[in-house]
């Protein structure tokens, strides 16, 4: 089935574009520690609010332009004529743990101290925005992914069971689902966060957010799945399986799941943007990921200053663009999938 989907997606130019962008994003996320020249907490107070450093070609090698601070009062930097620093590829830097497990030192590109390479400029304490964007991607993109996995699993279990067994189980499950849907999501997010946050350390906020996003999200999925389960239930092969004496659990997993899988995929793809936006919103409000962690929403909160606009420090707003690109890609991909799987648009976006 996946192969079939993949083929269909690649038949459409929009599908190809989306897949390419997503692959790019997620590869960047997986290898962010390798791709980022600096750690997200690496400060350099002498280079605060530095604009993106220009890259020039010298001797067929990329060099980064060296700047000097001309006017600290306005954070203005001017390039120093003729001075550049070579960009070194595949060199060792400060140690990090690849995926928290394997210690490694190699980085894709770096520049020798004391020079700096700021592909997207630096923030108020001289931290590299590009690196923070990559590390932030780890949080922002994975939260959506993990949250969706949990949500879809829960949704499938509850919705599938409800649809299959019907009767009282169905009734109770659906009331529960309606109940959760009846609360405006951000309100509930905030209330849940308020309740749970005190029990966790600031560094564990990631877990908290995933938990509360999943707790709210599964309801919508459950409802859709239940609807489909209801119709599947009457299909001959299900009845046959029952007659043959297969256990309910087996039926659920061996018969329902494959048939629902494609719908699940579409629903998941269409829901990930909501999770990404929710995490960004929470972090922006200061209720999500907090220092010393980093996420796109948190970076935007830190860019919420007048001087960012009056002094035209556009690079501090790139996390907004990153969120935008990610979300729009998922939305488009979701639509493409929906076209393939469910042309009559039975699935409503959550």
């Amino acid at each position, binding site marked *: 089935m996946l192969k079939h989907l993949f083929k269909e997606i690649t038949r459409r130019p929009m599908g190809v574009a989306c897949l390419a962008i997503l692959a790019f994003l997620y590869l960047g996320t997986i290898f962010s520690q390798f791709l980022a020249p600096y750690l997200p907490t690496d400060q350099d*107070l002498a280079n605060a609010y530095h604009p993106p450093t220009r890259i020039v070609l010298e001797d067929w090698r990329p060099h980064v332009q060296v700047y000097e601070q001309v006017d600290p*009062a306005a954070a203005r930097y001017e390039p120093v004529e003729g001075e550049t620093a070579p960009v070194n590829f595949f060199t060792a830097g400060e140690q990090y743990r690849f995926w928290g497990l394997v210690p490694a030192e190699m980085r894709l590109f770096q520049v020798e101290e004391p020079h700096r390479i700021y592909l997207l400029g630096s923030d108020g304490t001289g931290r590299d925005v590009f690196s923070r964007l990559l590390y932030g991607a780890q949080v922002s993109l994975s939260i959506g992914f993990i949250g969706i996995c949990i949500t879809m699993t829960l949704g499938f279990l509850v919705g599938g069971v409800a649809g299959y067994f019907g009767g009282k189980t169905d009734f109770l499950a659906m009331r529960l689902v309606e109940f959760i849907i009846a609360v405006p999501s951000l309100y509930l997010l905030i209330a849940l966060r308020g309740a749970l946050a005190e029990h966790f350390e600031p560094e564990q906020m990631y877990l908290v957010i995933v938990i509360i996003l999943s707790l709210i999200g599964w309801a919508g999925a459950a409802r859709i799945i239940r609807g489909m389960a209801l119709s599947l239930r009457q299909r001959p092969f299900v009845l046959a399986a029952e007659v043959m004496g297969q256990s309910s659990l087996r039926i659920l997993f061996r018969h329902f799941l494959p048939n629902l899988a494609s719908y699940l995929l579409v629903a998941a793809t269409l829901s990930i943007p909501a999770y990404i936006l929710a995490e960004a919103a929470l972090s922006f409000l200061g209720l999500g990921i907090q220092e010393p962690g980093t996420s796109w929403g948190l970076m935007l909160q830190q860019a919420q200053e007048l001087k960012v606009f009056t002094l035209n420090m556009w690079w501090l707003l790139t996390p907004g663009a990153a969120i935008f690109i990610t979300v729009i890609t998922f939305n488009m991909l979701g639509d493409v999938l929906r076209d393939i799987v469910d042309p009559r648009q039975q699935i409503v976006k959550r």
Partner: protein
Amino acid sequence: MLLKVISYPYLAHLFTAFFLIFFLVSCKGDIPPLEREEHDLPQDAEVSSTEPGNYGGVLVTAESQQPRTFNPLVAEDAYSSEAIGRFLNGLTTYHPIKEKVVPELARSWEISKDKRTITMELRRGVRWSDGEPFTADDVIFTFKALFDQRYPNRYMGQYTIAGEPIEFEKLDRYTVRFTTARPYSPFLYVIGFIGILPRHVHLEAYEQGELLQQWSVRTAMHSPEEFVGTGPFRVRSFRPGQRIVYEPNPHYWRVDSQGQRLPYVDYLITRYVQDRNTETVLFASGQIDIASITPGDVVGVRKNAPLHDYTVHHRGPATGIRFLWFNQKPGESEAGKPFVEPHKLEWFTSRKFRQAILHGLDREGLIQSVYFGRAELLHSIISPANERWHNPDVPRYPYDPDRALELLREEGFELDGNGDLVDSKGNQVSFQVYASEGDDITPQILSTFRENMRDLGIRVRIRYLDFGTLVARVSRHFEYEGAMMGFTGGADPSGGRAIYLSSGRLHLWNPEQEEPQTDWEARIDELVYASEETFDLEERVGYVHQMQEVFSEELPLLYLVTPHAYVGLKDRWENVRIPAMGSVIWNIDELYLGQEK
């Protein structure tokens, strides 16, 4: 009906709607000028020395916090005090341009030969904003109330000299005499702190034990006319979370040289905004008349100046101080939990530890980045803006992580195999710092602090609290390890005695000690008392300088940075006299709207 609207001719409706809105907006109209009541001027009306102006205009300011109370005996924070100061007067006040104490409700005074008795003549003919006459009875009532054990307040301690409350008696309708246990040189400055309360308004509540419930936020919302005072304004309306509107007090006792009763402005409005950034945005878009601008925003805000006719003035170094400190309070809470874990208390009470931490903080880097170069290192508990009292020759702590490690090693700390700092007993050094949210600079300072400490092998955790909660935690619950806060600076150091004295309520690291716990705190107490007993200015300065030396040597407060103060003000206001220290609109009653240029 619904459907007819949503058909394509509706586009025309849409356009009409937009035009209507803009048309109406332009008809918003100006605020109608205030109709002023006519009353006789008091006998002892004070004549302002500034250029006479004309009535009219609305002055709009912004604050990040709204007042918590309008009762001077309850007010603990600067925001409530400022609001109260609009409608209440003290006996004296500090003139920031002349840099000395000048009469307010007291028109003159005499100090006895032994310097212990001060006889004050009150201004005659002054009336409260409800028309009742102001007399010595009000002064006596105010002091009786503030010393009443039923109503604990911050003035009790402030007006207790050498263990004895100031004595006060009424000599006649307009004369009050104060006596102190020993000569107290800051008396005239300090006596002006408390706003004189109207006896006829509060007497009943006072007698029934309800004085502290009076003049609350509730009163402001529903019946602000109950705020009776002698100050330049009275409260017209208060909407919590939004704004407060003041209007002129029709019985105010100051006039200009043409006999016009002050203030000139028709209304003073203070908007409550969430944070510093919003305030700056409001000012830069011309919606408020005055705002303090952080060094980083100056360039950006100046760009918009031609659009909205304002100027960003440079005022020199800021007068307040900002610092980090560690909790040094021994003992346990009621629940039996020690305020600070014993091994951590050992660190915090070690001078070398504190000095090392300050050496380990890259304040120079902060100045260059977060303050855009427009700041200087703070070395003393009194800001360099206060030229008369600031001691420039105190010990300094430039950024020097090597020296920091040296000092730590002298105290038995060592870096272990993982690069973490451990004390002589093997405990890993880590602590938590509380701060309040609300501006962009605090998180940047603290994240730098965290990174700098990491270089020393120390783990720091930062937690942000709401301002009120932070104050409560450090001044009443004492359950914290480190914290960051600031104090506004006063003109005379006696305003800070609650911080300096070991018995002081604001002696943050270990407040309200019965006996000074350490030698150096005892020394500071001595110096403070000595400075208060002599009336010789040079001697006083000498003692205050020595006190600053002890503070900078022992470092109970780790000073941060003195930023340059910038204030943005709309050009159309006349009679503005920007002082070196204090509020830019200190003479708000004299400000008037100049003609459009």
